[in-house]
């Protein structure tokens, strides 16, 4: 009887790439955000000047809100979008990206798709009021950019939104 049996040693060589620097990009700042890309934040002009983006954002309102898991424009939303459409028709130098958002109660992919649905509902409404669709684009941030961060309906209600973000355009259409 052999207590210690000599077995063949099988040698395998591992290609272990030694990475010296774990961070090849530096710290990185900024997050490429919703609501910050266009003229909606820190917009020039006065809220009392009907031709200013500030008037659009604050007096008319740049966003509409949605009920849970829906993309239906509410009566309040229609009033705001009627104002947005009127403004866009008057100020033909502006284009807009409509950003759809969802609250955190949902999976990431579904919320991206739901945000797109909401943004598209806004686009369709604005187009139905005469805004050329060529001036409107839609995107969705899903649940990635909440503006209210509590985990309660008071916050969720603000996050289920579609925001019309203005940008100045060279192209007139």
């Amino acid at each position: 009887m052999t207590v210690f049996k000599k077995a063949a040693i099988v040698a395998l060589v591992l290609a272990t790439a030694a990475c010296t620097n774990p961070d090849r990009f530096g710290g990185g700042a900024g997050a490429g955000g919703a609501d910050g890309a266009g003229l909606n934040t820190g917009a020039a002009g006065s809220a009392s000047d009907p031709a200013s983006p500030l008037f659009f954002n604050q007096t008319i309102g740049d966003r509409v809100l949605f009920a849970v898991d829906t993309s239906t424009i509410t009566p309040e939303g229609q009033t705001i979008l009627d104002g947005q459409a009127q403004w866009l028709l008057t100020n033909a130098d502006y284009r807009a990206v409509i950003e759809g958002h969802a609250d955190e109660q949902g999976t990431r992919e579904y919320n991206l798709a739901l945000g797109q649905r909401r943004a598209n509902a806004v686009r369709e409404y604005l187009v139905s009021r005469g805004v050329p669709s060529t001036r409107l684009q839609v995107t969705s941030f899903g649940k990635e950019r909440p503006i209210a961060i509590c985990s309660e309906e008071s916050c969720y209600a603000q996050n289920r939104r579609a925001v019309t973000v203005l940008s100045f355009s060279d192209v007139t259409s």
Partner: protein
Amino acid sequence: MMKRLLTLLVALMLAGPVLAQNGPLRLTITDGVIEPITFAVPSFEAESPAAQQAASDISRLVVQDLAGTGLFREVPATAFISQVSSFVQPVAFPDWRAINAQALIVGAVNVNGNQLSVKFRLYDVFSGQELGQGLQFAGTVDGWRRMGHKVSDAVYSRITGEGGYFDSRVVFVSESGPKDNRQKRLAIMDFDGANVQFLTDSSSIVLAPRFSPNGDRVLYTSFESGFPRINVLNVANVGRQQLQTAPGEMAFSPRFSRDGRQVIYSLSNGGNTDIYRTDLSTGQHVRLTSAPSIETAPSLSPDGSQIVFESDRSGNQQLYVMSANGGEARRISFGQGRYGTPVWSPRGDLVAFTKQNAGRFHIGVMRIDGSEERLLTSSFLDEGPTWSPNGRVIMFSRETQGAGGTSSMYSVDISGRNLKAVPLQGGASDPSWGPLQP
């Protein structure tokens, strides 16, 4: 001395059924309650003074790997009767039986400059036999963890008869900052949270990375352009390019096919989201669904013949299975609540999913026909399961509630046991578990 040990051993064996275990050392992993296999890992022998640190570190890593599965329990060194000072020394089995160590792992480490090699033997203590052959791995000193994981994988595999998952990596989203300005960047880590490296910066939002089957590339969703788009990133050189999808306003939720040549994903146009496939070599696109509802989160079966996905065509999110070429889909989820993010298991027998019901989120598994649904977790927000290479463990994201909520990654056995957080600095989400490394 040698002769006395032999005599003692023979005497013990002749004395009859003193063994605590019948048959060879073998653990069959089932869903029932199991008694962990006990094992002992005497610190690996350092074959040169330069190898002392690595020998100690690798031994500890093997213990951590095996004990971390919940399937094995360490017999601590303080209980040892005999010490193993040499890899070639005969094993005093009675001393290990006496402390009820069913498995004994001995090893030796050598360091020569930047080169490190580790060899080990696994013994079935109660039958007094070596299990499998001695094995040696060689690599660099920096790569010592990989070699420790290789040892653990071999031990796990020999005792369970299944592949391991220790020498594998996970690509994920590293998170920092408050909820309303969260910074997200792609990162990669060892399965146990070690060796974190960043693959992108956080200048734009990145979501849901997905490893290619052989781990060479990662698909992910990027907001670089302001619109969700799919990027393909080369892991070795972190070069990246945008995937040329079918025309659409948004592209997201990508996954590779098993051969790595095709990508299935979701494309949104005019408020409608459907599933598409793009061939990476020909650039051809095929639309696989065309319902006016949301179809997303597609995942291919291991044989590539079917796709499981989520759709709200019934009114809310549910899971469906269709042919990989599209067409008629059959619903497989019928329980209370909503089901999303299905992922086909590597063995092909189960689908892992996220379930949302009564204000709670769960990670669960069900059979492909929807039967035997089993919820593995429950929390304020669990989502996005990914399978270990051997289909035994699921990793996922867990976000905590409230204004200060943060995301972490957890793993859980498909039995529902062994729930634990992946130890990482900072927030993390959207894990995608890569293959066992060659």
